C-alpha cells in the first residue's frame, strides 16, 4: 500500500491532466499531419510507465471521459474502459521492465493494441452497431461480407489498426523516456523500472 500512496503524490496527480491534454493535442497534431493513425494514448502510456499502472489506468479512463464529456467528440466517452485497460496494461509492462529495450516496447505495444481491440469490440458492437464512422469501417464491411458476425468484424477492424497504433505509441514513449533527464525521473516512484 505504501508504494500505492507514493504513486499518487501531488506530482503524479498534476501529471495526469497534462498527459490527457497531451493525448488530445497529439491526436489533433496527427490529424493536421494527415497520418492514418490515432496516437491518442501516448500521454496515458507515458504516465503508466513513469507513475505506475493505477495512475496509467486513471489517465486512460479520464482521457476518454473528458474528451467525450467536452462534447467535442462524445463518441469517445463510452470507450473509457478501453482507455483504462491501455493504461493498466502499459503500467504492468513497464513494471516488468518492458520499456528498457526498444523492441520489447514495440512487442508490448502490439499486445496492448490487441487487448484494446478486444475490449473495444463489444462496446463498438453494442453502442455503435459495430462501426466507427471512420475509414476503417471499410475493413469491417469486408469481413461482414465474408460472413463474419458483427462482433468478430468489429474486433477485426480493431486488430487492423490498434496494434500498429499502440506499437508506434509505445516506441515513441520508449524514446521519450530515454530522453528524460535523470533529475525528472528521480521524482517518480517507478523510475527504476524503466531506465
Amino acid at each position, binding site marked *: 500500500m505504501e508504494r500505492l500512496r507514493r504513486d499518487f503524490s501531488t506530482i503524479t496527480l498534476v501529471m495526469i491532466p497534462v498527459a490527457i491534454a497531451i493525448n488530445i493535442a497529439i491526436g489533433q497534431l496527427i490529424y493536421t499531419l494527415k497520418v492514418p493513425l490515432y496516437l491518442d494514448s501516448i500521454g496515458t502510456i507515458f504516465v503508466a510507465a513513469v507513475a505506475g499502472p493505477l495512475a496509467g489506468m486513471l489517465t486512460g479512463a479520464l482521457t476518454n471521459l473528458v474528451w467525450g464529456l467536452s462534447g467535442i467528440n462524445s463518441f469517445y466517452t463510452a470507450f473509457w474502459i478501453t482507455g483504462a485497460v491501455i493504461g493498466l496494461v502499459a503500467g504492468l509492462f513497464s513494471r516488468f521492465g518492458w520499456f528498457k529495450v526498444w523492441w520489447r516496447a514495440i512487442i508490448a505495444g502490439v499486445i496492448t493494441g490487441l487487448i484494446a481491440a478486444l475490449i473495444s469490440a463489444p462496446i463498438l458492437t453494442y453502442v455503435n452497431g459495430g462501426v466507427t464512422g471512420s475509414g476503417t469501417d471499410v475493413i469491417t464491411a469486408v469481413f461482414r461480407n465474408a460472413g463474419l458476425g458483427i462482433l468478430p468484424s468489429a474486433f477485426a477492424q480493431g486488430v487492423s489498426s490498434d496494434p500498429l497504433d499502440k506499437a508506434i505509441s509505445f516506441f515513441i514513449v520508449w524514446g521519450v523516456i*530515454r*530522453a*528524460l*533527464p*535523470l*533529475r*525528472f525521473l528521480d521524482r517518480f516512484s517507478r523510475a527504476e523500472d524503466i531506465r
Partner: protein
Amino acid sequence: MTAGGQRTTDDRGAATGAALAPMPIVVANVSFTYPSGTQALRGVSLRVAPGEAVAIVGENGAGKTTLVKHLNGLLKPSEGSVVVGDWDTREHTVAKMAARVGYVFQNPDDQIVERTVGDEVAFGPRRLGQPEAERQANVAAALATVGLTDAAATHPYDLTTPQRKLVTLASVLAMRTPIVIFDEPTMGQDAGGVALIGGIVESLKAEGRTVLTITHDIDFCAAHFGRAIVMAAGQALADGPAAEVLTRADVLATTNVEPPQLVRLAQALRLARAPLTVEGFVAEIVGRGQ
C-alpha cells in the same frame, strides 16, 4: 559567461558559399487574416536589405509575430507577397525556407528534442544536410558563441531556462542562414545574458547577415539595431532609423511602448537631442556646460 561573447575567427571560412549570397526581403502589401477571422496584418509593405539589423516593436497583438512568420513561410499572405532573395515564400515549404531564414523561437521548451546540448545544436544543420565536417565545425562555433562549449554533453533539461534559450539560439546560428530572426531573445536573461546576445547580434551584423528581432526590451533594441519598425493594429506605424523612431514620444505612446531609459531622461531634462547611448548622453550633458 563573460559579457560580449567570444567570436572565434576561424569559422568564417566554414560558412557555406550559398548562405552568404546577398538576400533582400521584400514584403509587398501583405495582409493576413487568421482562420478565426481576426485580421492580423493590413497592407504591410517593407524591404529589408541584406545585412540590415531591424527591430520590430509594438504592443502584444500588434501583428509583430504574424509579420515575422511570413518571412520564413510559416504563414502565407492572404493578400500581397513575400519574397526572400529570389524565392516567393508561397512556392517553398518552411523546411526549404529554413536554409535561408533562421528563426529562434521565444520558448526553448517548445522545440528541444535531443538528449544532449551538442545533438540539439546539430538538429538544424542535420536537417539542412550540412556535410559531417562542416556541421561539426558550425556546431562547435555556435556553442562557443553562446558560451556553452563545456555543456555539449549535458542534458538540455539539466540547464536553467535562460541557458536552454541559448541552446536553441545556437541551434539556429549553426544553420549559418543569411537571415536570422529572433523572437524576444532577451526575455528572462540576466544582464550577462543580454550582453552575450547583444554580442551575437553584433557578430552577425559584422558577417553581413540580416538580423531581425521582435523585442519589448527597448534598451536592447536601441543598443544593437539601426532600424526600428513600430507595429500597431496590423500596420507599420513607423519605420526608420532607431535613433529617430525610438525618440518620437507620440508614436511610442500610441502603441504603449516605453521609450528607452536614456530617452525618457533626456525628455525629462528637456534636452534638445535624445541620445540612445550613454556616451551620446554624457556628450549632450557636458556639451551644455551644465
